[in-house]
């Protein structure tokens, strides 16, 4: 399951699935080796924006040897990617990071939580856990619930929205609290930092194992530059200080180990 290379990705399709959010399928060598929660680095072609953009692998299609990236247009790089068309090529550094420990949680009551643009990697995680007791909590700003239908294929789905226009008004934790029958053994989550902080706290208080996927500005993506660190509770095995590399030891961490 360790694949690391600069892949020449070929665009299979791209679609704007919601306002400013794009779903890109590319065929590339690393796709078949990719695990849920791993990410890739996508290189812009524009010569003024040189660094790769870390984007989570939303899901893979092993038969087609392809992976799907779902991203929001946030700046120059993602803006460029949004104009990729079928048969265009795109350089990507694949596969990066550790991913969610899907094999370790089988047989348990698993809650997946995704907030906003943190939702995409949870889809592949749900897919990888298909058949298990999986409950997906998805948090949106409003009733534009991109990807939520697709979660239905693999898991039960619970929605939350900030404006209350769909599902529980509030965030994914509010939705979890509202579904009193779900008693998670483990939570896996990706989303904005306040959401992850709340989940860490909630999990600790309720003695639930929680895995959270973190974000940080990256340069190398492979653990060499030490750009992307997160504070840790104990000294990190690699760095020997209280910093761990999100691109390498993460992006997924046991919530109790990181100091966020």
């Amino acid at each position, binding site marked *: 399951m360790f694949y690391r290379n600069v892949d020449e990705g070929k665009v299979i399709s791209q679609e704007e699935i919601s306002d400013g959010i794009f779903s890109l399928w590319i065929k590339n060598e690393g796709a078949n080796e990719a695990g849920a929660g791993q990410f890739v680095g996508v290189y812009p072609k524009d010569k003024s924006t040189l660094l790769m953009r870390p984007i989570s692998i939303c899901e893979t299609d092993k038969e087609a040897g392809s992976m799907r990236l779902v991203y929001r247009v946030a700046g120059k790089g993602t803006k460029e990617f949004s104009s990729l068309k079928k048969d265009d090529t795109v350089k990507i550094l694949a596969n990066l990071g550790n991913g969610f420990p899907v094999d370790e949680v089988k047989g348990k009551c698993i809650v997946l939580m995704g907030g906003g643009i943190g939702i995409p990697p949870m889809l592949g995680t749900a897919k990888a856990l298909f058949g298990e007791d999986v409950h997906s909590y998805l948090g949106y700003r409003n009733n534009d619930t991109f990807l939520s239908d697709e979660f239905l294929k693999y898991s039960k789905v619970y929605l939350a929205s900030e404006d209350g226009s769909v599902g529980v008004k509030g965030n994914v934790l509010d939705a979890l609290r509202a579904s009193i029958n779900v008693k998670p053994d483990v939570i896996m989550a990706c989303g904005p930092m306040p959401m992850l902080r709340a989940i860490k706290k909630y999990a600790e208080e309720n003695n639930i194992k929680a895995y959270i996927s973190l974000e940080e500005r990256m340069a*190398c993506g492979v653990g060499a530059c030490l750009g992307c660190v997160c504070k840790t509770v104990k000294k990190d095995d690699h760095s020997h200080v209280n910093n761990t590399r999100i691109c390498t030891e993460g992006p997924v961490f046991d919530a109790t180990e990181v100091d966020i």
Partner: protein
Amino acid sequence: MNTKVTIAGVEFKNPVMSASGTFGSGMEYASLVDLNKLGAVVTKGVSNIPWEGNPTPRVAEVYGGMLNAIGLQNPGVDVFIERDLSFLSKYDTNVIVNVCGKSVEDYIEAVERLNDTNADMFEINVSCPNVKEGAIAFGQKADALFNITDKIKKVSKKPIIMKLSPNVTDITEMAKAAEAAGSDAISLINTITGMKIDIERRKFVLANKTGGMSGPAIKPVAVRMVYQCANAVKIPIIGMGGIMTGEDAVEFLMAGATAVAVGAANFINPSAMIDVIDGIDNYMRKHNVSDINEIIACV
């Protein structure tokens, strides 16, 4: 066709090495790059004790390059020797250990512990952000640079390379001070101090406010400084700053560098160093250069 160069008695199979801090200790890139093909691996700065480095965000992209304010996070020299240097000992490439410190004593302590390892040379990073001397780093005052060079040279069992900061009025003064104090070679340039502001959030992009700029955007400044130093000192120069291709490397060699280092380019293209090595080969073939030493300082 000869691509071998010699610096302070150490022979390099080719003049291409990693720039400190951009290639870890090679380990992280070993699955992407054949380390045996490199002239040398220059490792991330290491200090006598572990350093935490700066808060995040530590990196930011800028036009044609990047800023970094890693703050020299490192596991300390003991772990480094045990883990990183023993890893590198398995490869057929030279090893240059980049050393940092907050005081002259820090440097000396690190160098002494590295003295009896498989390191081939030490590169001394004197552009650390926080040093005893106050705001001005060792790398920005000729007398301070002379002093630290002199002290390190006295304890070092390996040739030393003083790495110069470009954030100075006259780089040749610094090069001369390093040479006068006995440095075996110099390397330049380290990053140029820059800043980026996020105008949407009215905040600095880097937690540290300023960061060191690298990447192709800084190349003309680096080439100029290498050229100036090559005309000011006799010791060999390792040139770096924005090298992305073999042509870029040749430009540095012509300006007077005996070898070159590739930094930010590794992030942009993980096979950058191999591409640079191949690019130099192609240049030599195309222009009938039988020995790379012919083009060094030829301009």
